[in-house]
């Protein structure tokens, strides 16, 4: 049985694609056969973040419309075995993602023995975003410590609870996870930024992890290598911890507390 994980947020620019790439890579690194699908029809970007943009021949919509089969469209990831990317199409026809078509592709992936299917949702609450969450078993809600992102996350949670197949069919609800990204412990400590506990209190869903704000994310996307592969950086470690928690392990939160620099550090600088 394949587990379908939707990475969503409502608001744009909060780190959905970065998270989809890292979560999918992390699951594959743990040995699970994983596919990651870009649902952002018209604004394909996952391929760039995964570093496979020059190998795109066929896309999600080609498969849905029968112009290519899954085998032709799936791109094998360079960095992790067991990982395959299904890019979004550049077509402007948003209705190309039919519910039936999406369902068939997901079923076919499950049939091919994939353990996890990660759906990278577009921003907003329109058709593409709804299609990305319709078949979800689990949802990772990516939220920045900022008012509009928190509000939009709450909206998207409402949509998951009303429009997902699990909700409509009255099955066990979609398992929701909160992932706080672009977190700055110093600013949160100084009362300039919502803390991750504030966000969790507001949204009332279990916390999967806190990813610190970091230059490493831009370096990663510049190079087309998912951030989880930036070894030794807090961002990569925080994503690795989140993967562990997702798989049921216990990991204490890291990179969330601000330590005041000591006198020597302040005198001589350094990070």
């Amino acid at each position, binding site marked *: 049985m394949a587990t379908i994980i939707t990475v969503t947020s409502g608001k744009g620019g909060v780190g959905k694609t970065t998270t989809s790439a890292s979560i999918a890579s992390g699951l594959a690194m743990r040995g699970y056969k994983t596919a990651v699908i870009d649902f952002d029809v018209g604004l394909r970007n996952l391929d760039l973040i995964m570093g496979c943009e020059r190998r795109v021949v066929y896309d999600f919509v080609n498969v849905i419309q029968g112009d290519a089969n899954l085998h032709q469209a799936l791109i094998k990831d360079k960095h992790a075995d067991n990982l395959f990317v299904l890019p979004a199409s550049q077509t402007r026809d948003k209705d190309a993602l039919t519910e039936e078509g999406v369902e068939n592709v997901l079923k076919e992936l499950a049939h091919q023995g994939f353990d996890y299917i990660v759906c990278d949702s577009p921003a907003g609450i329109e058709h593409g975003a709804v299609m990305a969450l319709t078949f979800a078993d689990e949802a990772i809600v990516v939220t920045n410590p900022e008012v509009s992102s928190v509000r939009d996350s709450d909206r998207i949670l409402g949509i998951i609870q009303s429009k997902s197949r699990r909700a409509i069919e009255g099955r066990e609800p979609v398992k929701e996870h909160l992932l706080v990204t672009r977190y700055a412990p110093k600013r*949160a400590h100084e*009362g*300039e930024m*919502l803390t991750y506990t504030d966000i969790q209190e507001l949204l009332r869903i279990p916390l999967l992890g806190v990813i610190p704000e970091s230059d490493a994310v831009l370096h990663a996307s510049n190079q087309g290598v998912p951030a989880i592969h930036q070894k030794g950086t807090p961002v990569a470690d925080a994503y690795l911890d989140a993967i562990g928690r997702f798989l049921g392990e216990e990991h204490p939160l890291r990179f969330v507390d601000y330590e005041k620099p000591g006198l020597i550090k302040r005198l001589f600088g350094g990070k």
Partner: protein
Amino acid sequence: MSWLSLIFGEKKSTASVAKERLQLIIAHERACSSGPDFLPELQKDLVAVISKYFPVNPDDIKVGLEKQGNYEVLEVNIVLPEGR
């Protein structure tokens, strides 16, 4: 900032302002979205029934649901056409 705030009195951090605002708006929006969505249907039916007896403009019938403490109040407001 810290010694200034000692002199001029503690100023609320902007993060706590953000949290309070979010608590209010999220509670409000959850209440709205979980509310019944039969109101437009009810309004249509009322228009149909009432126009059997005299002509009304669909816009002259307003239906609303309000929460007052522990009670939910269904308010139906019908403006009768003039000259009757």
